[in-house]
């Protein structure tokens, strides 16, 4: 167990170091950082002074480790465009994205499990066929079209829900939340569905496939033969064994939810990290791009690590597939 965790930890650190190297390379070589900080009217003396102050004449490895050290303490420099510390901008934008991602993840998980179980148990009902066909369309529709479609129906035609922004948010000092006001909650509905729909269909198909497989197993037949109530067989015997892969996939998908939030945030003008990143790309605001990249990498790596360790701890079968482990 310890060697397994140690190896995974080492891999995670290597991945992060590589991503940090990419971030650093962008930071240092994409555009001219000095020109971007000083603006057009700077003199050559100002230029040289800043080069010295930022240590850009030092050997590149020294600069890389300085970048790493600063990144570890949460310092990603100043945004070229907004002229404010990147960390501060990201801290302002993060709550919007995290709230959206969390609600979508929850929606995808509950919806996926409920529909997955239903379609597995009632394989041939009309509703199951409708759900499965609907899910196929849901997968082939690009995310931004789903968002636009929802805006068209619920904001333009029916006028039930707002089509952009977060609504009224409550400021808790270090966190702004839209979950405490009616307009905040109403604004969350459409973006959350847009972002969660793809993952929902993914989880639903997974639950359905796993459930169908588990229901074929001998121990389910034994449970039936022993006369256990069908409800108990389905929910306490079959479902429990279905959930291990579901939990690991959901965990891994949470990272992609945060990444796909870029598209959803752009459709709904949701003031989160994704919109920040798109703006940064358009204006080649390299510090923001580098910081966003590092943040996403950290989130991905941590989630991967947790999922791996959890799967390893929960499911003894997963251990056998690890190379080097003793059976």
């Amino acid at each position, binding site marked *: 167990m310890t060697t397994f965790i140690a190896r995974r930890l080492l891999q995670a650190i290597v991945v992060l170091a590589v991503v940090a190297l990419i971030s650093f390379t962008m930071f240092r070589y994409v555009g001219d950082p000095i020109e971007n900080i000083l603006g057009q009217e700077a003199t050559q003396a100002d230029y040289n002074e800043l080069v010295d102050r930022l240590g850009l004449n030092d050997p590149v490895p020294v600069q890389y480790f300085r970048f790493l050290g600063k990144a570890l303490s949460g310092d990603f420099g100043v945004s070229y465009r907004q002229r404010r510390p990147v960390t501060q901008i990201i801290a302002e934008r993060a709550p919007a994205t995290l709230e959206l991602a969390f609600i979508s993840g929850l929606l995808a998980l509950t919806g996926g499990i409920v529909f997955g179980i239903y379609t597995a148990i009632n394989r041939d009902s009309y509703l199951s066929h409708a759900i499965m066909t609907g899910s196929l369309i849901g997968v082939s529709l690009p995310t931004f079209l789903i968002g636009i479609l929802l805006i068209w129906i619920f904001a333009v035609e029916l006028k039930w829900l707002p089509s952009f922004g977060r609504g009224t948010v409550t400021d808790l000092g270090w966190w702004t939340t839209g979950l405490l006001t009616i307009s905040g909650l109403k604004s969350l509905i459409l973006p959350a569905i847009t972002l969660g729909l793809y993952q929902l269909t993914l989880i639903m198909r997974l639950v359905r496939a796993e459930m169908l497989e588990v229901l074929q197993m001998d121990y389910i037949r034994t449970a039936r033969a022993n006369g256990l109530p069908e409800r108990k067989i389905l929910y306490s015997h079959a479902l429990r064994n279905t959930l291990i892969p579901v939990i690991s996939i959901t965990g891994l998908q949470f990272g992609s939810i945060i990444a796909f939030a870029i*598209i959803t945030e752009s459709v709904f003008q949701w003031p989160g990290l994704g919109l920040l990143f798109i703006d940064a*790309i358009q204006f*080649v605001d390299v510090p923001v791009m580098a910081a966003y990249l590092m943040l996403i990498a950290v989130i991905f790596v941590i989630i991967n690590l947790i999922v791996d360790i959890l799967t390893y701890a929960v499911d003894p079968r997963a251990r056998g597939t690890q190379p080097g482990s003793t059976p």
Partner: protein
Amino acid sequence: MSKAIKPASDPTSNEDEEGDRTRLQEIRDNPIVHSFLKSPVAIGSALIVLLMMLAAAFAPWIAPHNPFDLATLDLMDGFSHPMVPNEFTGKTFWLGSDDQGRDVFSAILYGLRISLFVGIVAVLFAVVLGVALGLLAGWRGGWLDAFIMRVADVQLSFPSILIALLIFGIARGFIPATERESAAMWVLIIAIGLSDWVQYARTVRAIVTTEKRKEYVLAARAIGCGPWRIALVHILPNTMSSILVIGTMGLALAIIAEATLSFLGVGVPPTQPSLGTLIRVGQGFLFSGEWWILLFPALTLLVLALSINLLGDWLRDALNPKLR
């Protein structure tokens, strides 16, 4: 080549009158052609894709006017409803017109041209890169294999749209501001291609590692073929049917990726709008009631992506009956 083949060798053709098979029948009995003719979905989607490709290729000749030649636009034509004569000029636009009097149908044809071009070239780029790296990894093995596949693993754990966005952003930083517009399409192609090579590399590597242990490789070596000749001439052709299937599906994904990036405003410049750009523009008119500016480009994108996917599905089943 002889036009008739003796029937005795083929027991399935005994329903033919004299047993003589013409060239046409020979083609019809090819398992892939046969499966194609038996599948209405495959025929339908192939027709749609073919039609759209032809429409895109011949857009300048088919389109009622060049939507980006400002001289041909008349502001009085603006916001014409589909199929309804304009109240000022009396002109009728099949799919309506936008705020500047631009024919939506023509804009779609030109947009399709750019979407398909970017999609196809990006997939070709990804295929060439992925197949080359996969072949190298599988054939050479060792540290090179480990290195390439580890890079692939890391890239695969991030969503490809994020990778494409990032590559696009970095490339923009390197290109001087004055040339960004003209280079945007090629940057987009490279970004989508680089974000998508992994699946080709993994597939080719998997096939190569199993194929290289087979006897025909040993035989080729025994008669004195060099290692690269074996890899390119003997092993590579065995990967082609899988690459064709993944590539077809990949084309749909690349077209959607291009549309998504253009929709996000980081794709092709507004002077060369693709379907994604048209959807982005159309979204703005949704609230004022001009739904046709959005709906028709969106439908075109959907039908195109869906048809390519269905074609890919059929191709997978036809080329590999065991997978059914």
